[in-house]
């Protein structure tokens, strides 16, 4: 079990944010110790990581809530939630494809610059365009 400060540092989230996730029920009611301090389980940490990943993908907190319910009981999920999850899956696939192209493009440019000690073709290319 982990205390709120540990989770905050580990996942780079403020303690206010962690408490807010619980308040709006993205997180279940967090267990408390005898002193009333929150004790996060591995399962809670997994949910928080999921929220962070989904936020990075620009999902709203409302959408994340629905996805979390879907994550909890995928078989029983309503058709509209399944549909939303499917759409989000397609968005992610598109995003991965875009990122892969960008990664390959940057990899190519990095390889070009390190492949030649005297010149950087990226800069040379820009110079040539300017002339």
């Amino acid at each position: 079990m982990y205390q709120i400060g540990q989770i905050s540092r580990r996942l780079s989230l403020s303690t206010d944010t962690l408490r807010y996730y619980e308040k709006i029920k993205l997180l279940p009611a967090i267990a408390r110790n005898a002193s009333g301090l929150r004790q996060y389980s591995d399962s809670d940490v997994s949910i928080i990581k999921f929220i962070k990943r989904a936020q990075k993908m620009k999902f709203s907190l409302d959408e994340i809530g629905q996805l979390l319910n879907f994550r909890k009981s995928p078989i029983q999920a309503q058709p509209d939630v399944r549909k939303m999850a499917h759409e989000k899956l397609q968005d992610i696939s598109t995003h991965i494809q875009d990122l892969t192209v960008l990664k390959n493009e940057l990899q190519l440019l990095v390889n070009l610059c390190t492949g030649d000690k005297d010149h950087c073709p990226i800069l040379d290319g820009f110079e040539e365009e300017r002339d």
Partner: protein
Amino acid sequence: MNQEVNIELISTFSCRRCQKAQEKVQEMIKELNNESVFYHEVNVINHIDYAVQLGVLRTPAIAINGKLVFTSLPSMAQFKKILARYIQAE
């Protein structure tokens, strides 16, 4: 009748290996003496989308008929062998 085979050398303005590759590939094509083989140079800086689409991660590289075939300069024997496949396949 032989079909067209388009050889593209993917290179950059200033890399020495690319300059060497340009000379070498043109030399090899000349040696083949086949009128259906065409040579083009593609500069990565001007055509980066195309280079990425081909899967080029380093230069020089050689594409044949729009497919990345060599990721480094081949020997004449390798070049002839691969090219023969394309000429026959067309």
